[in-house]
């Protein structure tokens, strides 16, 4: 990708235990996670993580529980200190920061949204939303307008005087998001932000986040264990397993080219028609082609094309992007793409 890189993680290791540095030497010599736990009694939390997170985009880190994803996101604002490695934010290694610099970064450049909301129960919704300015010492009079603006934006008009326990889970998480937005930071860390919500509300919140992102272009780092959610939100997808990165890249690409059986298993259960876009399965050509049945947009899901073709696999469509043809979609290719591919087989994207 040619985007600016906002956050860059370099050779990051985290080992939990009494003597992590000794254990790190063993890991460098090639000791596995299981051996390290058995013989050295240390837990290898993160193993040689290298990730670049593009500015203004959503990077989703996905993995099952125990894969180290929550540990990883806590390294980005140093809620957890790494055993080795670098975390570069805007080109500066935040591990060199003094406590004062670190606090400044947490106040102004990075905000965080938590799985269990983590609102302060003794403060009103408005005071919670204005947490970042209040930490700087601003009075509620000063930040009320800004906080109210963001509360309105996330759909909590007129709830500022309530206490968190008076709101439902979904509304509490909206406060959590408004709180992160009020800090005016470029980077938003979201740790399983929607995992504690029920499915319908979760969908609402995902749509809210997509809307906000289209408007604000924050650098979002989103943690989830839910692949559907990951594919819906991600510009850049990182898949973690047992503390190392199995595969990372553009989500459509990962879906069509799983790097190993673990990812194949993962993507096997996905409703591919809803996730894959026409641009991922089309034949790329700008040459005009005769005898096409219609036009589709490059960002349409396969599901919508199937319903347009009424299930007919003999049709062909022109794929358009901003009014120009970028390729041709053959319905036969489309149907083939719906079946999960195994690694090694010929994939459809050339």
């Amino acid at each position, binding site marked *: 990708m040619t985007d600016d890189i906002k956050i860059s993680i370099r050779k990051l290791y985290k080992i939990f235990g009494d003597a992590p540095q000794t254990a790190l030497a063993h890991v460098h010599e090639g000791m596995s996670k299981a051996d390290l736990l058995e013989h050295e009694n240390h837990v290898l939390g993160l193993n040689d993580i290298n990730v670049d997170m593009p500015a203004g985009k959503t990077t989703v880190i996905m993995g099952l529980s125990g894969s180290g994803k929550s540990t990883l996101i806590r390294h980005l604002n140093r809620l957890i200190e790494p055993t080795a490695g670098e975390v570069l934010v805007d080109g500066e290694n935040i591990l060199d920061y003094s406590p004062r610099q*670190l606090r400044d970064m947490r*106040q102004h450049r990075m905000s965080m949204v938590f799985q269990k909301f983590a609102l302060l129960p*003794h403060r009103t919704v408005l005071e919670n939303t204005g947490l970042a300015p209040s930490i700087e010492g601003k009075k509620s009079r000063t930040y009320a307008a800004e906080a109210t603006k963001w509360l309105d934006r996330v759909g909590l008009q007129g709830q500022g005087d309530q206490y968190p326990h008076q709101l439902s889970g979904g509304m509490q998480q909206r406060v959590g998001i408004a709180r992160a937005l009020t800090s005016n930071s470029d980077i938003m860390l979201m740790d399983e932000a929607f995992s504690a919500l029920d499915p319908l509300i979760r969908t609402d919140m995902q749509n809210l986040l997509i809307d906000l992102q289209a408007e604000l272009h924050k650098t979002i780092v989103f943690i989830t264990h839910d692949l559907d959610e990951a594919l819906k939100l991600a510009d850049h997808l990182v898949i973690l397993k047992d503390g190392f990165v199995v595969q990372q890249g553009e989500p459509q690409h990962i879906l069509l080219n799983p790097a190993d059986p673990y990812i194949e298993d993962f993507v096997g259960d996905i409703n591919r028609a809803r996730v894959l876009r026409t641009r991922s399965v089309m034949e790329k050509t700008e040459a005009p082609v005769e005898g096409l049945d219609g036009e589709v947009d490059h960002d349409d899901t396969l599901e919508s094309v199937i319903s347009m073709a009424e299930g007919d696999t003999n049709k062909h469509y022109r794929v358009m992007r901003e009014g120009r043809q970028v390729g041709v979609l053959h319905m036969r290719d489309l149907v083939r793409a719906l079946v999960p591919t195994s690694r090694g087989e010929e994939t459809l994207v050339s």
Partner: protein
Amino acid sequence: MATYDFVFDGLGLREWCGGDDAGGGGLMSMDALLSETSGTETEVSAWDTPFPSLDALNAACPAMPQSRDLTSGLENGFLAIKDGLQVVVDPLTQPLSWALTNALWIMQAAPWWLMIPILMIVSYAVGRSLKLAGLVGLSFAFLAFIDYYDYTMQTLAIIFVCAFICVLFGVPIGIAMARNDKVQRGMIPVLDMLQTLPPFVYLIPLIFLFSVTEPKLYGIAIILYAIVPVVRLTDLGIRMVDKEVIEAADAFGMTERQKLFGVQIPLALPNIMAGVNQTIMMSLAMVVIASLVSAPGLGVLVLRGIRSLELGVGLVSGFGIVLLAIILDRVTKAALARINASQH
């Protein structure tokens, strides 16, 4: 001949014991005196072999200390450091005496028609309940009606001062324990000891250290006894604050100070208030015992009831203490309920 002669003979310590005339030196026990005057050497059967205690060993070897030497040694040791200790402790605790004297004076000097309404207003301000304020008014009116008003005010004054000082020291100690595992490990045995020592035992060294007429004598005893719950519950409350909320405070860049006063203490407040409630109840219990060392108040009447078998006085003052306990408990519980309601 004493039972354990063979030990010292066997070890060749007879010289050190000071010759072989056993039981010659040192203080004589009653048994030894009796056997000497009756002129019969008592033969000890195997069944009656005494435990090799200090006294039994002393019988065989006069150089061994007797058990009475232990207690008198302790006493002399304490008396020896007493003066030095007083130089340090006396000025440190003097404010406590002043506080108690002044509180006692104010509570008694204020006329009843001012004091009872003030107490009702305070209880209403804390608990926001008219019923509670009514209960407070009625209770004090009843105690005044049976002419126990002065004693009640004395007890109340002592409790106010002591509970306030318990909170003043207990909460910071609890915070220090919550923030540092080492402090916690060091404090827990001390708290355990304070909680398990019979209250009378506190009084013994204090009587030596201070004169019985000084209010700080009973003040310290009450504080030591009652400070434990507020310390423990402050520690517990701060440790129980939701980890995620603390993480959020960190993630938004709060300083340690902001975190303590803006998050941890407010969220631990229900537990701290539960501790304050317990502390007040325990100082009420101790104020009765402290009447043994001249603490004024209802406890004196209870003591009179026991000493001179005045059954009625003892029972009525006991009932007065129960009434006070109910009021103090209800008022602090109401405050606790208000804090809880605002958080959950």
